[in-house]
């Protein structure tokens, strides 16, 4: 029972940053700008928020600055990739390299290997919902998470509405599907692409704050561990549909949670359990792709 509760709680816990990256990244995906800088942006959110917390202890300021600096990266990405027509994959990779380089540089100046918020009590960020928290199973799913976790799940609904029910969402999708026609009817395509990337940056910053300050009170340079790429895989699997993509993100959360909780019983093979989530994502990606292309009869490589 305890184990099931732990697995369920950890599923939500591990899904959160990926869901945030997914709902942020899917706008860029729909606008046909592949944003692989999600990883770097998330790391930046984690780094700046931890750094500000370390020096000031002011949480709102930390969150604000984390979002602000990540938006700057989003602007750099958009400017290089959209305005200057650079290769967005290369720009994304560059950001993924620059962020840990800056963090490493700053931490070297501070003479530490990681930033540890010793005087911040992270349990106080957890919201325990009265009544619900006492219900078995449901209690461990719904209660006791930090605020950004709840935001992430509410975000799925908000972003689904934003994408399908508003003019903004429709325009973003039109820009992605056929840029030339969008331009011909007077849509400012670059504006929608910028907006799509910046939404991604905003969500990634929150994911970073969640990952570092809210959950662990710690920053290390490898803490995102490919979550941004997993988010991209989830977006690919779900074809950018908010709910479907988020479900794939939760699937990763389940895999990760199972790996963490079951590795206790695995003895010396525990280290291998870390690989499982990545393997599962690759397998799912392959399965989705096979299904998607099953009925394509055209001979040709790309379609």
């Amino acid at each position: 029972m305890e184990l099931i509760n732990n697995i369920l709680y950890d599923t939500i816990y591990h899904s959160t940053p990926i869901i945030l990256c997914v709902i942020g990244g899917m706008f860029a995906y729909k606008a046909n700008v592949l944003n692989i800088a999600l990883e770097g942006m998330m790391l930046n959110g984690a780094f700046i928020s931890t750094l500000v917390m370390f020096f000031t202890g002011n949480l709102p300021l930390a969150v604000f600055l984390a979002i602000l600096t990540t938006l700057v990266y989003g602007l750099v990405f958009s400017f290089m990739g959209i305005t200057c027509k650079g290769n967005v994959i290369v720009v994304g990779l560059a950001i993924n390299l620059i962020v840990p380089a800056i963090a490493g540089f700053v931490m070297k100046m501070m003479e530490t290997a990681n930033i540890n918020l010793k005087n911040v009590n992270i349990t106080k960020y957890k919201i325990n919902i009265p009544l619900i928290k006492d219900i078995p199973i449901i209690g461990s799913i719904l209660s006791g998470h930090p605020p950004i976790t709840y935001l992430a799940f509410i975000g799925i609904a908000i972003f689904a509405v934003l994408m399908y029910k508003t003019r903004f969402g429709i325009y973003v999708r039109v820009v992605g599907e056929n840029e030339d026609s969008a331009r011909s009817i007077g849509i400012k395509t670059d504006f929608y692409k910028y907006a799509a990337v910046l939404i991604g940056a905003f969500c990634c910053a929150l994911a970073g704050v969640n990952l570092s300050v809210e959950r662990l009170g710690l920053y290390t340079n490898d803490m995102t561990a490919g979550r941004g790429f997993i988010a991209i895989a989830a977006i690919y699997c779900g074809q950018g549909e908010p709910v479907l993509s988020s479900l794939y993100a939760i699937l990763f959360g389940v895999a990760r949670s199972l790996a963490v909780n079951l590795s206790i019983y695995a003895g010396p093979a525990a280290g291998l359990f870390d690989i499982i989530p990545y393997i599962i994502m690759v397998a799912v990606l392959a399965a989705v792709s096979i299904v998607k292309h099953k009925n394509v009869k055209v001979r040709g490589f790309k379609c």
Partner: protein
Amino acid sequence: MNKKESIIRNILNSILPIFLAFVIGGVVIACIGENPMETYWILLKKSFLSSTGFMNTLHYASPLILTGLAIAVTFKADLYNMGVEGQMLFGGFFAGIAGAYITGMNPFLHKFICFAAGVLCGMAFALIPALLKAKCRVNEMVVTLMLNYAMAKALEFLSTGFFRDLGSGYVATPTIKESAMFSRFGRSRLTMFFVIAVIVLIIMYVVMKKSKLGYEITAIGKNPEFAEATGMNVAKKTIILMLLSGALAGLAGAGYMMSEQFKYTLNFSGTPGLGWDGMLIALLGGHSPGGILIAAIFYAALKTGSDNINMYTNVPKEIVALIQGLIILFLAVKFISERMDLKGRRLHNGTDQ
């Protein structure tokens, strides 16, 4: 447009990003109260202007030439093999295992076995995304990026478990036998591995510029649908290219193991890793073998220099990683062709959907 003009443009397109990155790096150095000129001078002096330093630079360039080539062959065909890092680690790890556990061998044969182990492992690991791409049309970039993490974790598991050298105070595999080590030239770190890397580079030059495969790489990169329509089997070529890339990456890992590291540690390829460095080198060299050689030597100079920066100044050597990232960022944009050639430009809007 004539050929001379395009060469000049290519050179300018490579030099401008470097220049911009160094200017920004200089501003950062100035901000922490150090002298940027002095720092860069140490970088230059220690990596180019002394004979030992220059030979060390060539030594560090050897694996980078190979990882650069590994990235270039796939990038040129518009395939994004981001798994060079993982393939390189896998190749290096098992080259190290072969080097440590096979004893009493002829040195020449032993090195050959290690290289073979590295190449085979690199190819095996590249086969997964290649098959997924060719048979199921899975985006190879996402797969390779994720498998890198899986590979790093798996090797961490192997080196802390089965293959751990218990005599060592930290997590490492046993040191490879003397018969598998390359001997150094004089006081520098330079070994025969550099010669091997250059030979492979020359072979790749012939393959990419003169052979049918090289032509097909370019054709697929320009327009895969057209390549398919003219009768090329793009799926098969994709697998071949990925295997070639994996083999080069594995070779790089094996060579790095036998000429520099001698055992697998958790920090085998450093940060940000030889595979990622290879990406910078391929971009900087414009995906051509000649450019890759120059770019690899340039980047290796940064690497040799960065250790000396740490030693002789108060600037943290992470500044080099920052400069590296900035170079990639600026390389993404073609500053010159943007203005000179607006019609023939190909839009890069992500990969295939």
